């Protein structure tokens, strides 16, 4: 399913991470302060508002931890016993109406050396 929105923390390294994907799908990268480092409830609200859509979000490790822990606690999303979030990894969240039902981890893809 192709993304319909691409959102990112306003930090340059996040914007740069998102840029190629956005371009490939003819989308603009939407910078959003709620995804800045150190955010918690604002980030969770933003993610909840995206439940049921096909959006790709790029943010920081602490924010991802906050979002995942909140969804595990409040929505009872199963993260497994020792959830991971290596740099460059992806969590796919599924849900709708502000509520999430599942989360799946994709480890980082190691780029082949050129």
């Amino acid at each position, binding site marked *: 399913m192709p993304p319909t929105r691409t959102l990112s923390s306003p930090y340059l390294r996040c914007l740069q991470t998102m840029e190629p994907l956005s371009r490939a799908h003819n989308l603009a990268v939407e910078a959003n302060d709620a995804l800045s480092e150190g955010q918690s409830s604002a980030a969770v609200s933003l993610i909840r508002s995206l439940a049921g859509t096909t959006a790709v979000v790029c943010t920081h490790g602490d924010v991802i*931890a906050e979002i995942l*822990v909140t969804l*595990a*606690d409040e929505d009872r999303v199963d*993260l497994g016993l020792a*959830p*991971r979030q290596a740099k460059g990894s992806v969590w796919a969240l599924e849900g709708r109406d502000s509520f999430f039902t599942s989360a799946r981890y994709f480890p980082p893809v190691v780029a082949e050396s050129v």
Partner: protein
Amino acid sequence: MGRQPELNGNEARDLLALLVQAVDKANQGLVVCNKKGRVVLRNAPARELVNARDGDFLAEKAVEAALGRALAGAYHEETLDLYSPTRHTLKIRAYPLGGSNPPSGAIALVDDVSELRRLEAVRRDFVANLSHELKTPLGALSLLAETLDGEEDPDVVARLTARVGAEATRFSRIVDDLLDLSRIEAGATGSLSEVALSAVIDEAVEGFQEPAAARGIRLEVARPKHVLNVMANRRDLVSAVANLVDNAIKYSEPGGAVYVDADRRGDRACLRVRDEGVGIPRRDQERIFERFYRVDRARSRWTGGTGLGLAIVRHVAAYHGGDVSVDSVEGEGSTFTLWVPLAKQEHARD
């Protein structure tokens, strides 16, 4: 078993009457039929459990069927869910009597297992909830550890480290509260002795003045007007009051106040903890004393609540022969009232 000595007619009648009375005292329903399937004995609990009042013939039919199966020579067991007149569950077990070829009769044992069923369900829920409650901080620790790995910005490292500490603290608090709760539930609480309620209050609020002030919340403690001595396990009562004060502060907004006072009502002391905080929606008021029940999960996570505090308070109140109640209006605040019986001399004195 020794053989019964030969009995004459009167002795046999007396023995039979005695046996009929004896089986009435059992707490299990007992129905015996002869080889033709005619019921010859039904003890008191069986009459209570299996009767046809309110048009409910299901239990009686099930017992008859079970006896029929047993008369055919086989042990039979079934569980019967009944919805009328009240919802309950019966377990029926039927055995052939006097050899199986052919049996000379059959007996059906009937147990009301409703309470057992309910407790099993409560335990299953508790284990599921507990696993979830422990998995949440563990998952957080796992995620935070990986985020910290390779992080170079000292501000970020400091913030993440604080989060790791908070999650670890939450985990250990849950374990501490669980151990407290299981100790109290097991009744391993020692004996009650006479304790001055004012001393309990002092000890319970100690240590809360500072965190309350730090959040801009006034903690006002009114000493009881009279000496109020209660029969209590001091440590548990202190922990119950501290739990109430802790909650009141956590659910208050800056600028609010928390009031603690105690009074005497008949032969009980009544201790109140009142706040001007967010309050508790009516629909949740009944359930907040349940283990791991939370009105606002997000708030509970931020404040480091374990979800067990009020369950501990309720259990402490109960084994003191007291009670705890809540009176709350959403947006205006909550008052928790803890009732504890006064020491004997106390209510004799006036």
